[in-house]
């Protein structure tokens, strides 16, 4: 019913607005009949992308914003998290991700898990850098639909 619909949300690039992005995502994903687990996965992935904007995109600009576009098609929900910041990812090539598997307690450290989690939780993750950064997170709808129909 809401196929091909586009919802856009813009919030200040501040930590206290990330839960608002999750709430809006929840509303959209519930409309699309995603399963509880898929919704939880997307909440975390989108928050990771937003956290990165809050932490890394804007140097000292207090006016920075995050734009989130939610595009639903018959088969996917595609969530784009966009900033107008200074970038910071490697310009090309493999995305660096890290996790704690196989590490000792001395080796593990906080940080660097965001992109790894986005990739683990979504079906597809793309990062584009142009004027700022866009992280595009895609989740398939098929499984969810099969569960509820």
């Amino acid at each position, binding site marked *: 019913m809401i196929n091909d619909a586009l919802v856009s949300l813009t919030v200040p690039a501040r*930590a*206290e607005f*990330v*839960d608002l992005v*999750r709430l809006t995502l929840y509303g959209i994903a519930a409309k699309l009949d995603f399963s509880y*687990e898929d919704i*939880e996965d997307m*909440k*975390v992935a989108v*928050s*990771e992308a937003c*956290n990165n904007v*809050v*932490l890394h995109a804007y140097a000292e600009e207090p006016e920075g914003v995050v734009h989130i576009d939610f595009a639903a098609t018959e088969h996917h929900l595609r969530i784009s998290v966009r900033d107008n910041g200074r970038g910071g990812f490697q310009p090309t090539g493999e995305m660096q991700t890290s*996790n*704690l*598997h*196989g*590490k000792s*307690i001395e080796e*593990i*450290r*906080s*940080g660097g*898990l*965001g992109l*790894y*989690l986005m990739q*683990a*939780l979504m079906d597809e993750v793309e990062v584009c850098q142009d004027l700022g950064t866009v992280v595009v997170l895609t989740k398939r709808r098929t499984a969810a639909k099969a569960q509820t129909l």
Partner: protein
Amino acid sequence: MQTDKLKFRTENREGQTVVYVAGELDLEVASKMRDAMEPFLELSDRKLVLNLRDLKYIDSTGIGILIGMVKARHARKAAFAVEEVPANVRKLFDLTGISPFLNVTPAPAEGA
């Protein structure tokens, strides 16, 4: 910040301090969490247990804080564990690989 976004409650069991962490543990409340945990990290003669029964949300920010706690307790040679982890939180612990460091127990480890 809504005042009820992240809440703490402490319970003393034999030889253990159990801290119930309830709500959403995200970037907004990260420093609140770190500040609240600091005094418990110091108590090296007691086991520190986080009860996550009512933790509704966590992401890499919160997992980063837990990594810090794991390391702080290890440096003091003090016991640390996590109990009653909800399924969605457990999934993230397993994905990131933090689970082996958390000594996860399903139910309250009474007197353990």
